[in-house]
């Protein structure tokens, strides 16, 4: 099963850190959203994930392999970085066949993707004559031309109508349900929340929030304050839940009821217990954008 791991990834441009200490991991069957204000580092992170750039420090590994395996040519990663990288003077069919040729895929595979994307009727048209929605479809057809385990999609829903957004979301969900990983960025927070299992929020090059969406139990997070942090640390170490401590609060990747029960059984007085999913993505994002956000997950595991 594919597994994407980012560890302390930093990207510097001169003296400026475009990304700073980004760490997260994604398991198979997951759609992960990336959100953040303009300039927060989303595109830089996509560039690194897609192999177009290298981290200044830190590692990105796929399937537990070496950092060299992050090269997309070696790892079979499908990438969509917008529609600007489509040559405007080439026909739709030739665009697909050309990349298929380079990828070692057959011409029939290219034609199959053409049909899958719903672009058969415009196969002989030049790319520059396509609508934005058609270009996105072509971009996704190119991203899925080779058998891939990871799909990286940078702003695939921008400027699309409702029908096209629905199609893009269905592509992402189907890809994840077939055992792949999708990492998608978008400014459309409602759409992101609807399709993603998790959303990572970036601000000024840092990962400031990792929020679970939908009902995925494994991504449920509980915030907890207790009167005896040392005993709670011991109790949590026996549960296997990922947990972090910062500024007097614990962030625990476990369901609220079970976390409360764990503290109760350890004889620890609970000062605050709440479900982290309570905060809407939009509200969190607004706080991040305004600079008022206080991240609950900063700091290392205690």
């Amino acid at each position, binding site marked *: 099963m594919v597994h994407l791991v980012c560890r302390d990834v930093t990207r510097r441009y001169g003296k400026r850190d475009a990304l700073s200490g980004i760490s997260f991991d994604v398991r198979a069957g997951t759609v992960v959203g990336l959100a953040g204000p303009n300039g927060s580092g989303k595109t830089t992170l996509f560039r690194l994930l897609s192999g177009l750039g290298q981290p200044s420090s830190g590692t990105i590994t796929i399937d537990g392999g070496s950092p060299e395996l992050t090269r997309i040519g070696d790892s079979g990663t499908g990438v969509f970085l917008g529609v600007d990288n489509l040559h*405007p003077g080439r026909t739709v069919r030739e665009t697909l066949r050309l990349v298929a040729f380079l990828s070692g895929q057959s011409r029939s595979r290219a034609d199959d993707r053409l049909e899958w994307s719903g672009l058969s009727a415009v196969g002989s048209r030049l790319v520059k004559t396509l609508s934005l929605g058609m270009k996105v479809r072509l971009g996704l057809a190119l991203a899925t031309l080779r058998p891939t385990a990871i799909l990286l999609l940078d702003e695939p829903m921008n400027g699309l109508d409702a029908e096209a957004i629905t199609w893009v979301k269905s592509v992402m969900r189907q890809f994840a349900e077939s055992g792949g990983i999708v990492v998608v960025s978008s400014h459309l927070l409602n759409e992101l929340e609807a399709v993603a299992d998790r959303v990572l929020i970036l601000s000024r090059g840092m990962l400031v929030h990792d929020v679970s969406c939908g009902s995925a139990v494994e991504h449920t997070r509980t915030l907890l304050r207790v009167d005896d942090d040392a005993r709670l640390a011991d109790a949590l170490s026996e549960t296997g839940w990922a947990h972090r401590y910062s500024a007097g609060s614990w962030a625990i990747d476990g369901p609220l009821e079970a976390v409360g029960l764990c503290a109760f059984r350890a004889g620890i007085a609970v000062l605050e217990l709440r479900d982290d999913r309570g905060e809407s993505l939009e509200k969190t994002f607004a706080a991040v954008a305004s600079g008022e956000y206080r991240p609950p997950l900063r700091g290392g595991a205690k």
Partner: protein
Amino acid sequence: MSRLIAYELRKLFDTRSSIVTMLVCIVAAVGLGALGLLVQEGGVLDLSQTAAAAVLPFAIIAPVLSAIAAASDWRTQAIQQTLFVESRRDRIFRAKIAASLIGVLGISGVAIVLAVAAGLTVGLSREQPMVLGGFWAMVWGVVALVVPGCLFGFAIGAVALSPPVAVAVVLFVELVFDLALAVVPDGGGRYFASASFPNWMASGADPLAAVTSAALWIVVPGAVGFLRYLRKESS
């Protein structure tokens, strides 16, 4: 690597604008070859001279096409589609050079064949005696003209990574700079002229000027362009 070269070669011919450009190049070359036929009216028709005349436009065409081949993907960001599949930029650089050389030599070959065919047709219709003298010398002349031109254009394109800038520089060097150097007293300008290297390849004359010319217009910009290829952010 052969697949990457074939991919780059295919890209030279798979858009309408590139096909039109190639056709214009071939028509221009054949047209010049036809002019060569006119000046040979009467006497023996030397088809080699017709071919040599047809190749002359490639002194300009070869570097211009190579400059565009080196730079256009970066301008349109289409380079990302290549990088998504082949992440080794040094291989992309080498494949593009090979494709440019093969592509331009191929077009010049087509132009020569068409020019010679036109010469044959004219010669037969005029019932004029024909010869194909110095065939291999003519072939070497084509190589000496096209290969350095391609390398020069590609190097400039790789440095600029912008087709308009690269083409402007190539045209300025070929049409203005080299001519200006020709009037430098004592012939000192030949050490800096881009044409000195192809001239040496064609005739063997002035090897020192060929070395400085190749260094100045191929090796140094080629090395800088290679580094640009390795480091340029494809945003």
